[in-house]
């Protein structure tokens, strides 16, 4: 039986629903061997209005590809994407354009996500102009200034260029750009990883406040489980293109089920010298070109069983709302 994470939630209330999504990339061509990278391989989830799904994974997990595919910045190889109950999987680009105003993205690197040749006022006004939402210059100006204020900036930033701003300020501009269209859904791809710790706190607080006020749904992508636990209502752990565990932050923190989740929890340092965990964990995040057979995590798994080498485990709901894809667990067993 297939389980679609979050399926138990009311289908109608889903703002965005992804079913068995796959995104494969082909590398190589004429002269070199053709290789397929299965960046996202059969992922399903849904997010309701006003909710944040945290997506956690290391390099090669496919989390960024997933975020961009959901926004149709890549064309899905297979599967379906439903947004506001509309099937957007195969929409043509000019149809997709009309939907784009409701879904936005904020990138990790504040230094490369803003056009260096555009002033802040232009960067923030482009979304409105592209979607023809503005009637006159005065209205435009007011909307820009009010949005900048919402993200903690002010009108002195209007005429500046991105290179004149600090990392935190640029990230605020990126958020303003995403906000100004009043979207319903925002993909946040490691929005604070490149920022200083104190600035990160401000931006995270800001994102949370905005969500409370405007009921945005977020897909919050990060490698940092601590940050995700702070931001998200639901957490999905990704490994080599698949979701291996799914649950609330409390579930993940109090009762991590999947061995990979264990590994992550063990590796993540906390700001407490009394809690040192310097043990030698073996293995490295694998290359998505060479995907292991069966359960993808089996080469690194302490608890590996024979079946793990041959058969891929599917996501099973072990407790209400807490799912894991691992042969160690069977439904209705512990």
């Amino acid at each position, binding site marked *: 039986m297939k389980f679609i994470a979050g399926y138990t939630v009311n289908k109608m209330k889903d703002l965005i629903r992804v079913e068995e999504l796959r995104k494969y990339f082909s590398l190589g061509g004429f002269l070199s061997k053709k290789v397929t990278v299965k960046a996202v391989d059969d992922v399903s989830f849904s997010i309701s209005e006003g909710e944040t799904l945290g997506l956690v994974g290391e390099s090669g997990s496919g989390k960024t590809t997933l975020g961009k595919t959901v926004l149709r910045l890549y064309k899905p190889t297979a599967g379906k994407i439903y947004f506001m109950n509309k099937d957007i999987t195969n929409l043509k680009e000019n149809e997709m354009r009309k939907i784009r105003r409701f879904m936005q993205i904020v990138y990790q690197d504040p230094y490369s996500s803003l056009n260096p040749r555009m002033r802040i006022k232009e960067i923030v006004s482009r979304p409105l102009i592209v979607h023809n939402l503005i009637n006159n210059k005065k209205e435009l100006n007011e909307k820009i200034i009010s949005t900048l204020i919402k993200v903690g900036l002010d009108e002195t930033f209007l005429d500046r260029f991105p290179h004149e701003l600090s990392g935190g300020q640029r990230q605020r501009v990126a958020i303003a750009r995403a906000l100004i269209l009043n979207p319903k859904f925002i993909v946040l791809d490691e929005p604070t990883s490149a920022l*200083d710790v104190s*600035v990160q*706190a401000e931006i995270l607080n800001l994102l949370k406040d905005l969500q409370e006020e405007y009921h945005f749904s977020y897909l919050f992508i990060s490698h940092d489980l601590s940050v995700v636990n702070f931001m998200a209502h639901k957490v999905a752990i990704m490994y080599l293109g698949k979701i291996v565990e799914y649950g609330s932050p409390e579930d993940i*923190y109090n009762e991590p089920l999947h061995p990979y989740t264990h590994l992550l929890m063990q*590796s993540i340092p*906390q700001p407490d010298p009394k809690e040192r965990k*310097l043990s030698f964990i073996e293995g490295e995040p694998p290359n998505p070109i060479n995907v292991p057979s069966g359960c993808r995590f089996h080469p690194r798994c302490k608890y590996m069983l024979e079946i793990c080498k041959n058969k891929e485990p599917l996501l099973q709901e072990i407790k209400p709302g807490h799912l894991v894809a691992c042969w160690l667990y069977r439904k209705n067993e512990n």
Partner: protein
Amino acid sequence: MNKEILSIKNLKIGYETESGLLIAVNSVNLNVYSGETLAIIGESGSGKSTLALSILRLLPSNAKIISGSIEYSGVDLLSLTDEEMRKIRGNKIAYIPQEPSTALNPSFTVYTFLKDVVYSHRFIEKKELKKYLIDVLKKVRIPNPEKFLNSYPFELSGGMKQRILIAASLLNNPNLLIADEPTSALDVSVQAQILALISSLKKEFNMSIIFITHNLSVAAQIADRIAIMYAGKVLEIGDINEIYENPAHPYTQGLLSSVPRLQRTKRLRSIPGFIPNLTNPPSGCIFHPRCPYIKEKCKKFEPKKYNLSNNHEVYCWLYGE
């Protein structure tokens, strides 16, 4: 108290820029003792990297050492000639950089690279050398070291490359290792491995380590003492347990409460404001424009050092007159 291995006194370093002289390190006093790991923690603009590079005298051409001294085993490194300094770099004082990908020459195999590191300082017979290199590679937990020697950097993952750089730093048995954010570019599981590795190697090679980082959690894993830097100044320095449990400086307090923990919290405390313009730093205490406990005195006078215990110092007017 352990012996001092490095003593930085009143170090002031500036960069010449279009808009004036930017003071990156502002009269810093710091000691590193033998056998300890000192973590220098700071955000961007704190001066921590400049400080680290200055010990190795690897600063860019527009940097000026305005005043101060860096004493290593009784000798002021700033007064040495280039050749004398070269003999120390990679030999007695080793360095691990932040970005493993750009630190390795893509045209050289691991073997060539490590061989050069050794030969820059001493001579070993080729056979002996190969044995020695394999030995060191085993110490940094590289599987299949023989085969590994013939690999090129592009064949290696980030974690592997960083291990090579660590191995390179150990080749000549250094006394002092300067690690400049060695895990910032790595995945979290690899980071854990590298931190564990560095910790165990420190004991084995009997080194002192200066560990530069912006990450309070990483520092917590590995440091004995920490120094908190802000805008070129050291604000607080001392035993790690004491500081994390009882952070004295308002900036340290702000930093610690802005880190998200695994256990879900309601809100993160942040530090309002921005770092000051380093070409024209504020008068008095450099942190005063952002400090929630500011007094009149803070705006005019630079705070003196206060000893809160025999291993905990803070530079803040809250702790004395």
